[in-house]
């Protein structure tokens, strides 16, 4: 690419942006990044880059030349990229229509053709909640699960265990982790007691991970908690964003009924990680092992999607379907986490297209995928993604792409659960109960008896006590989310 970044992405404007849009975007960025105000390192450079981008794009001749150059460099980047990207649309054409229409795009990000089957070094930090509620079986299980991971470490790996209550401390340092006997005795000193201040734990965990940060490897933080934090949510989110910037992914594991699933979801989605729910601590060993094994199979980390949709198009929602189902929000750039060697990252984008009056090709948006391919040096690899569709007058006869329909049918269940919870919180308990009953019917039809039963019992609870149980909320949320992992059973509903 000329320079090293896409000027349009830098300003956050679509490729067909007019002068007005450019001016607005430039002003906004400049206000934030001006050397008189900015505090973070690197902002001044960014400010200068944005200035250059604005200068080039507002001069028609230079912009035309730049567009050509950009096109050529993108074609070149795509041809030698170590990433592949497949795009499926819900319909092969948009309708010429004087009202908004919804369109779905399925994006698959895969490793390139030649993938070396090497295990990358793993740099992991496990941050353990040791508040009073963890006492007993919970902490015992977590302790032994953690020790099992440390036994599996290879020479190039690094691991660190941090525990927190109202304060945080390093329980097992990376040096101590290399010796299992030392690690075991250090872990046995871990005692429950105190409150839950997640921000403290994350802060220390991140600073330890940064010390042992590995460019060639996977950097990952696992947060195990059973309680909610009060007052430091903002700090937590800021840490998650800083983690995303560095390429550290955050996994949340919630034990029991009383942790804050919304905060953990938010932390994980900002850093490209995911959240797992354990109703009993017994499964924690398996779970940690699974996470650890998946880290050994990472091909690229810090996978990001940046760019902008055209003016005619609004992104309504993004759902990551693989490797871990997770709603991703609607803000660009999007941090997508780790790309597994033998798998894919699959995203389902839902967009609203504003009324289109002309027949022809409509560009939905221009994006750049970027990722750090592990073992390929420091330069992130990029891959252009261009979404466009023809616009026709006649509605299409063929049914929408099967995989999209299958994914949407599961997402519909997830959304129903979300709506019911929202309604319950607003006090509309009878409506929420009806919705859960409806959800139960759908779940039964999909042969998910356990979940259907949970939905029905929550509906009943709503009718009696006007509220959901904190456990039921989580069972339904993570249960319906996990349905996305199953292979689609049938073409319908």
């Amino acid at each position, binding site marked *: 690419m000329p320079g090293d970044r896409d000027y349009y992405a830098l300003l956050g404007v679509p490729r067909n942006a007019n002068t007005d849009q450019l001016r607005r975007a430039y002003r906004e960025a400049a206000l934030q990044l001006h050397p008189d105000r900015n505090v973070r390192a690197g902002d001044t450079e960014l400010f200068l880059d944005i200035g250059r981008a604005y200068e080039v794009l507002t001069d028609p001749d230079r912009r035309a030349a730049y567009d050509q150059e950009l096109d050529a460099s993108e074609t070149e980047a795509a041809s030698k990229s170590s990433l592949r990207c497949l795009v499926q649309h819900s319909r092969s054409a948009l*309708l010429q229509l004087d009202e908004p229409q919804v369109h779905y795009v399925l994006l698959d990000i895969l490793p390139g053709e030649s993938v070396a089957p090497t295990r990358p070094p793993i740099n992991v930090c496990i941050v353990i909640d040791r508040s009073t509620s963890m006492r007993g079986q919970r902490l015992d299980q977590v302790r032994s699960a953690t020790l099992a991971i440390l036994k599996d470490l290879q020479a190039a790996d690094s691991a660190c265990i941090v525990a927190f209550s109202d304060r945080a401390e390093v329980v097992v340092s990376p040096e101590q982790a290399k010796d299992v006997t030392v690690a075991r005795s250090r872990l046995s000193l871990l005692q429950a007691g105190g409150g839950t201040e997640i921000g403290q734990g994350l802060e220390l965990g991140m600073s330890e991970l940064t010390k042992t940060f590995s460019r060639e490897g996977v950097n990952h933080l696992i947060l195990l908690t059973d309680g909610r934090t009060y007052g430091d949510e903002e700090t937590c989110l800021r840490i998650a964003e800083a983690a995303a910037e560095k390429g550290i992914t955050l996994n949340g594991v919630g034990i029991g009924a009383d942790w804050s699933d919304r905060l953990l979801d938010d932390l994980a989605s900002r850093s490209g990680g995911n959240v797992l729910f354990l109703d009993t601590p017994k499964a924690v060993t398996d779970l940690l092992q699974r996470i650890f094994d998946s880290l050994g199979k990472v091909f690229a980390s810090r996978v990001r999607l940046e760019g902008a949709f055209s003016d005619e198009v609004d992104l309504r929602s993004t759902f990551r379907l693989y490797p871990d189902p997770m709603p991703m929000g609607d803000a660009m750039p999007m941090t997508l986490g780790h790309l597994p060697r033998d798998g894919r990252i699959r995203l389902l984008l839902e967009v609203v297209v504003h009324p289109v009056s002309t027949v022809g090709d409509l560009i939905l948006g221009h994006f750049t995928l970027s990722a750090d391919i592990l073992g390929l040096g420091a330069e992130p690899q990029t891959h252009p993604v261009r979404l466009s569709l023809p616009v026709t007058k006649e509605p299409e006869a063929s049914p929408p792409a099967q995989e999209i329909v299958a994914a949407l049918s599961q997402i519909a269940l997830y959304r129903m659960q979300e709506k019911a919870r929202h309604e319950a919180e607003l006090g509309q308990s009878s409506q929420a109960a009806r919705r859960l009953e409806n959800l139960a019917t759908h779940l039964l039809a999909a042969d998910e008896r356990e979940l259907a039963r949970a939905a029905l019992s929550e509906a009943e609870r709503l009718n009696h006590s006007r509220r959901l149980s904190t456990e039921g909320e989580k069972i339904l949320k993570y249960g319906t989310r996990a349905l996305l992992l199953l292979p689609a059973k049938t073409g319908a509903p």
Partner: protein
Amino acid sequence: MIECPSCRHQEFVGTIYCSECGTRLVHAGPGPTMAIPRDRVNAEALVTKPAPPEGPELESGALIGLRILNTGDILPLIGRDNFTLGRAIEGQAVIPDIDLGAFNAYDFGVSRMHAEVLLEEDSVYVVDLESANGTLVNGKPLEPQRSVPVRHGDVIQLGRLRMQLVSRYRG
């Protein structure tokens, strides 16, 4: 905008599932009826027959009706003496008298023209119209195109969609 057939919620054109009730809005076109494994159809038919409903359920004043078992809705059979059951699809030439689309008929494996109910002098009859997943009365599969008498409380199953005949005359 398009309207969800089951809850009347308005959605943008192109939406595939209703955001309100989860009903599928874009159908896979006039494609084949969804196949349900035979053993599943039979297994569900074996579930014990629910007690026949009592008279007051027929508030509509209809003499005869079909009660959809999973929702409790009653479809009155009035105004004529034969009713075809199935699911209507846009653009289909012949549509059934009673459209079961609102009861997730597609998911339950109901054919577009699945069965017919005949109200005759002596009794009520059900005929399977060579449906893909078959019609069962009280768990027994019907031979296609052969009419079988049904009585008050009998369970008629189209694919996996179960309904019960309610009749004021207990005939």
